[in-house]
């Protein structure tokens, strides 16, 4: 861990709220990407995000620095996100705010920006993936962890992670092709939806 980060961590451990705020602000976007990647754009995302940092705060004195703060926070975020997925499945309730919605408009895009449109489609495709594939794709490709790190964080054998990466990507291809086909179909039917 870098010296500066170590210092901030020590201050946070001693109850320095400003130091802990610095940690939150530094890792907020990384955690939001992970949680959103796993849960989609639902109302629970903010709650899970907050809970991630609260759990970190509660265990901060046990944090030995074996991994970086970012990795530790990501592990907490993944566990909370996966628990939330299990909870949704168990309850089998449908609340519109629980269902992943479309991602917000990309501020980089203008009207008819194809790249922005493609990003939205990819994000939608990710939400349609089985969570076990989605999680490895989020960690490996979006968060940038190595395959070994991904396996360690998820406590899975390396072979399983590799298999899920391959199957997840293949499945994503199928999903994206079917989304594309539907869009082309709408355009072809001329029913005003295209």
């Amino acid at each position, binding site marked *: 861990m870098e010296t500066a980060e170590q210092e901030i961590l020590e201050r946070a451990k001693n109850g320095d709220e400003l130091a802990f705020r610095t940690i939150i602000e530094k890792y907020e*976007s990384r955690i939001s990407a992970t949680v959103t990647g796993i849960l989609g754009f639902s109302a629970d995302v903010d709650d899970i995000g907050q809970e991630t940092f609260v759990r970190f705060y509660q265990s901060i004195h046990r944090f030995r620095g074996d991994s970086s703060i970012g990795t530790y926070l990501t592990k907490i975020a993944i566990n909370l996100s996966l628990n939330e997925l299990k909870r949704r499945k168990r309850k089998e309730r449908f609340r519109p705010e629980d269902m992943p919605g479309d991602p917000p408009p990309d501020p980089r895009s203008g009207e008819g920006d194809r790249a922005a449109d493609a990003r939205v489609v990819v994000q939608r495709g990710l939400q349609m993936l089985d969570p076990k594939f989605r999680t490895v794709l989020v960690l490996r490709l979006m968060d940038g962890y190595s395959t070994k790190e991904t396996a360690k964080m998820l406590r899975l054998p390396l072979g399983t992670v590799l298999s899920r990466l*391959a199957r997840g990507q293949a499945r994503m291809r199928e999903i994206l092709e079917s989304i594309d086909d539907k869009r082309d179909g709408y355009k072809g039917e001329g029913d005003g939806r295209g």
Partner: protein
Amino acid sequence: MIKEMDIKEKEMDVDRKVLKLLYRSFDAELTEKQRLRLEAALAVSAEFRREKDRILALRKAIAHSPGRAFRPGFANRTLARVRLRSGRPTGSAADLFFENFKIVFRRIALVSAVLLVALAAYSLTHRDLIPKDAVYYASDVAFGRILQLPVF
């Protein structure tokens, strides 16, 4: 004919194995033997080269797909929650109130809504149980007088 089908199946089997190697090559080290096999397949097959490009494009698209930022004020809300949990109410009174309210409200909102609906339904079907004047703090006579006011 059967021999042709067998050959085709074997070819597909080889293709599947090489395709697996192709996927694996992005995320793990291949052995020398695997690397040579994959390179040979890529060298002879334009379709495999296109497949490699498609996988690369997909991985790039996933890596750059938008994550959603938390709502503005995330750090403030998180710190308020931290203080609440650690029993250190040093935040503003408004922060604490809304944080508490949100937590309590979520838990009872659904139960309360169900109870209210049940009560209303029961009240409608058993009119004598809860008299109108108890609910509205006004008797039928008072209602009559109200309805005679000029505004009506």
